[in-house]
């Protein structure tokens, strides 16, 4: 059942007697890594989680931050890695369904989805299959349920072969006054199960998610859950209506560990007990045992607490929406989760004990592999001859290629709130009836975290902060998903601890507390562990959503300026080193957080003041890749200044053109302004650590000294190839959205 001997002893101690099979099943699911955070709880305490805008930090179904004017956002990210490895379409689809219900449980209307994905290289058939089906699954669910998928990210590396990462994030909008919490109260109140019938789906799925993937687990077929976005859509509308009519005392989604975890969390939250009359739970399959019903992970279900006199009204509403609604229990005065089958008590466990999973703290020991992989000298890689070729090969590499063939499979506009569509640094959403809005991004830097866990953790957060700043939003808070290998191995534990440390430091400097998150450990296959890959979802706010920027060049004649302290550009751990030279090595410069913040805040201020409407950050691939992305997004070329390439090469390039063009650094941005606003820009830039006019927008080519001269149409052909590799396929008809 996935409980160790010591854990069993602990249960004996807590209960003061032998648990029966049902009771043991409840412990087993609740004490799994997935629900109980055995290996991560002590480390997670490091995350800062307070701030002036935080209305709800970790500990609830989702974190909530205030947007002002009584508006709030609820958001959370969650992993569905293991289910997606086994059955990619349904694994990804149910991942989306699950995270939507977490947001719904806060009382919020889900308004945006994002997906953060990792796969092995696309030259392996199995990886192509996983990638294609995961994307289809996310679209298949999100599109049908009517929540726009507005952003996300994807990377490919051999480290994820056979162990894809599928992290889904959902953002919900709510009035502060309407916030719901998972807290059962009022002895005698009814516990109502809403939504689909209960089958044997994912029995022990939570424990499964915490095992390493093996050949054997691939044949555990009964773990597979199938999503029903139609049922979810009706569940969303029904729950929002129930909340709107004030019919609910509390609401909670059913995720991992099903009724067991929902009921015990609600009971613990309210300091009460809950009796579940298990025979009342509507079932899809015959002959289910009470323990199976209690831990089933059937999808599209919610648990609500309703006052007895309002039950009838609530059930009538469920009927109107065509979803099931059944009273399956009562709030009780004792503190237990008690399971009753046709009048007979078949299990009694204290809700507190279920929540009291053991926590394992380990020594943080620096693994030896780091010394090995951090060795890197620029001189080890030869300077390329043909920079045009290099730029084309980088822009067409799956890690830097346009994501259009992914996000065009996602409905990113339903809801008519998406102001900046996918393809920009962050999605920008408006709030109807107000000038306000928010921006949201997900980011992860697995390779960087592998080469330097602490620096990579900080860089992950910094990247998200930059992305929000580029569009002009004020970053306010973070959700995260910690995707790691086994914490029982010293290297795995070190990576986890160090990444959390780096992320925490960055969150502190940026003032973006972590308000929700999720942990996915044991991501290992026969080929070894994945890169340590914490992903973050960050949200930012706009007072005036009309004042935002996008990367695409907008006007010929605009002057393009690079801003930031790019004196630290480096090829260590860069895309260029991996794509062109096959090297994953070196210690990337850790972010200088204070300077990062200063530069990002400056860029944001320029957008907010209306001075800048074209901005982009320099990220994977370095300055020239960022410039090419801006050109392609806007359909306008750029001519670098005379002598600029030489200046770059002598300066930050340390004499090397490839370092200057493709070197990566943290706090570097590109903005473009019309000539007539140049003086205003210079004024604003007086506070910058450094800046440099690099060129002028115009024409249909990118020209950089005598190194690069490429037509946009050639760049576009390379950059916008279909990631799903259907020969001859042309994706999309219109220009990229800038």
């Amino acid at each position, binding site marked *: 059942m996935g409980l160790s001997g010591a854990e069993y002893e602990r249960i004996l101690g807590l209960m003061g007697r032998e648990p029966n099979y049902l009771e043991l099943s409840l412990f087993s699911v609740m004490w799994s890594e997935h629900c109980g955070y055995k290996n991560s709880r002590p480390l997670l305490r490091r995350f800062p989680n307070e701030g002036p805008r935080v209305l709800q930090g970790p500990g609830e179904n989702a974190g909530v931050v205030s947007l002002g004017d009584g508006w709030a956002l609820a958001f959370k990210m969650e992993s569905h890695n293991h289910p997606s490895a*086994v*059955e990619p379409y*349904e694994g990804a689809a149910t991942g989306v369904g699950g995270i939507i219900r977490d947001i719904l449980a806060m009382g919020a209307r889900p308004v945006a989805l994002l997906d953060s994905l990792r796969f092995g290289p696309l030259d392996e058939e199995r990886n192509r299959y996983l990638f294609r089906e995961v994307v289809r699954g996310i679209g298949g669910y999100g599109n049908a349920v009517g929540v726009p998928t507005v952003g996300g990210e994807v990377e490919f590396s051999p480290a994820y072969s056979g162990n894809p990462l599928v992290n889904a994030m959902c953002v919900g909008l709510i009035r502060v006054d309407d916030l719901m919490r998972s807290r059962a109260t009022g002895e005698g109140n009814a516990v109502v199960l809403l939504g*689909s019938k209960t*089958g*044997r*789906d994912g029995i022990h799925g939570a424990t499964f998610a915490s095992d390493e993937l093996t050949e054997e687990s691939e044949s555990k*077929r*009964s773990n*597979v*859950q*199938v*999503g*029903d976005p*139609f*049922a979810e859509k009706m569940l969303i509308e029904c729950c929002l209506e129930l909340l709107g009519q004030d019919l609910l005392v509390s609401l909670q989604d059913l995720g991992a560990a099903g009724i067991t975890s929902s009921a015990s969390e609600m009971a613990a939250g309210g300091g009460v007990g809950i009796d579940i009359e298990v025979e009342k739970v509507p079932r*899809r*399959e015959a002959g289910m045992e009470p323990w199976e019903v209690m831990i089933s992970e*059937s*999808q599209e279900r919610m648990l609500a607490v309703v006052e007895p006199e309002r039950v009838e009204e609530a059930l009538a509403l469920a009927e109107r929406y*065509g979803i099931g609604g059944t009273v399956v229990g009562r709030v009780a005065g004792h503190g237990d989760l008690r399971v009753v089958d046709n009048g007979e008590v078949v299990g009694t466990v204290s809700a507190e004990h279920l929540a009291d999973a053991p926590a394992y703290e380990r020594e943080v020991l620096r693994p030896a592999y780091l010394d090995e992989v951090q060795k890197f000298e620029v001189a080890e890689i030869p300077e390329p001859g043909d920079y045009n070729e290099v730029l084309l090969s980088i822009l067409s590499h799956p890690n830097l290629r346009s994501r259009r063939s992914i996000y065009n499979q996602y409905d990113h506009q339903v809801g008519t709130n998406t102001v900046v569509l996918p393809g920009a640094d962050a999605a920008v959403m408006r709030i109807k009836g107000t000038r306000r809005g928010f921006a949201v991004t997900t980011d992860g830097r697995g390779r960087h975290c592998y080469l330097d866990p602490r620096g990579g953790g900080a860089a992950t957060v910094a990247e998200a902060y930059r992305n929000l700043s580029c569009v002009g939003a004020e970053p306010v808070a973070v959700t995260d998903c910690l995707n790691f290998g086994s914490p029982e191995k010293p290297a795995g534990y070190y990576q986890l601890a160090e990444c959390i440390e780096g992320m925490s430091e960055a969150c502190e400097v940026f003032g973006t507390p972590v308000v929700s998150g999720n942990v996915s450990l044991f991501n290992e296959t026969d080929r070894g562990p994945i890169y340590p890959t914490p992903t973050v979802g960050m949200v930012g706010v706009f007072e005036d959503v009309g004042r935002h920027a996008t990367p695409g060049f907008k006007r010929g004649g605009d002057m393009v300026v690079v801003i930031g302290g790019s004196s630290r550009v480096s090829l260590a751990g860069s895309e260029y080193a991996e794509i062109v030279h096959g090297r994953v090595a070196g210690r990337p410069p850790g972010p200088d957080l204070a300077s990062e913040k200063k530069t990002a805040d400056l860029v944001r201020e320029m957008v907010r003041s209306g001075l800048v409407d074209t901005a982009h950050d320099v990220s994977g691939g370095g300055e020239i890749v960022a410039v090419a992305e801006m050109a392609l997004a806007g359909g306008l070329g750029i001519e670098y200044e005379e002598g600029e390439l030489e200046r770059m090469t002598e300066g930050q390039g340390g004499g090397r053109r490839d370092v200057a063009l493709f070197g990566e650094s943290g706090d570097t941005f590109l903005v473009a302004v019309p000539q007539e606003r140049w003086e205003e820009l210079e004024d604003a830039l007086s506070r910058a650590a450094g800046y440099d006019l690099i060129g002028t927008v115009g024409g249909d080519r990118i020209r950089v000294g005598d190194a690069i001269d490429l037509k946009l149409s050639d760049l576009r052909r390379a950059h916008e190839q279909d990631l799903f590799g259907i020969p001859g396929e042309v994706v999309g008809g219109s220009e990229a959205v800038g």
Partner: protein
Amino acid sequence: MPETLKVRVLVRPKEGILDPQGEAVRGALPALGFGGVKTVHIGRLIEMEVESAAEVDAMCRRLLSNPTIEEYEWEVVS
């Protein structure tokens, strides 16, 4: 020219696996004026012309069905 066989493959959700399509259709039927339907299950019909039936089972397993969530049966119809 080798003769061809007509093969019919039926693919359906495995026992115990949720069949949202079937469920939704069944749930909608009474309101649509179709009574007396107890269960509905929806799967895939695949019809092929093949030169030999020797490989049909392997095709079903590897491509035509998703063994994780589906089961199949096949027959030569002519």
